[in-house]
């Protein structure tokens, strides 16, 4: 009963870990992830690797174009391409 309440599969644990990198995991999900984290080496490795990636992304202060900005430049470039042909 107790085990069933807290048990999640490895895949579910990975999903919750991904979500928690974006603060999208609920408290209950985090508790279940921590429960698996205690006894599952694969989960521990995944969490460690995932945190490392998140830290690298934050440190690099990456910037990118907004979706709409990108589309606008794409349209303009396509127009230029058509004119050139």
């Amino acid at each position, binding site marked *: 009963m107790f085990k069933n309440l807290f048990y999640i599969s490895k895949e579910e644990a990975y999903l919750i870990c991904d979500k928690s990198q974006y603060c999208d995991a609920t408290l209950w999900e985090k508790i279940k992830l921590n429960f698996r984290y205690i006894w599952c080496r694969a989960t521990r490795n995944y969490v460690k690797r995932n945190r490392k990636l998140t830290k690298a992304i934050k440190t690099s202060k*990456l910037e*990118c174009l907004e979706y709409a900005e990108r589309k606008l*430049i794409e349209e303009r470039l396509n127009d230029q391409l058509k004119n050139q042909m």
Partner: protein
Amino acid sequence: MQDHQLNPKKWIDLYSDYLFNYTITRVNDREISKDLVQDTFFAGLKSMKNYKGEASERTWLISILKRKIIDHYRKINSKKGKAEVRMTYISDDQEGDWLEERVEDESYLNAQENLENSELGNAIYECISKLSDKQATVFKMKTILGYETETICNELDITASNLWVIIHRARLQLAECLEKNWFK
């Protein structure tokens, strides 16, 4: 013999964010960066016939962008119409403390840190360029732009569970790529 070829139809997908990140770390202004990236693509189109194929497409575009950035700074300086001379003294009474002047100052340390961050950023973009278009778009929207899950799902017409599967695969590939190219 040409080792590389140009494919302008793929420029936006492959290089727009990389060039934008490269520019914004150098000019520190989002609007100007956007314009410079766009100008770079237009200039690239115009000078396609000059491309010899010796450098990769990205290296070639970066070399155009570098000239655009230099031109941008030249324009700013000519607007000012005067050269700026910077004194290193913090206050008058510190003038002549020549020994202290030789100690590494904070701005130098920050510059070094910025350079390292910028290199890490380039390494991450290198890895992002190896993802599929969909994975890269979803990953950038969620991770770099910080969009809400719902917004991305509406924009790209995908379900939330689909989004998390895409994010999971993208993160796996990125972690693996960075381990090979950066963390080693």
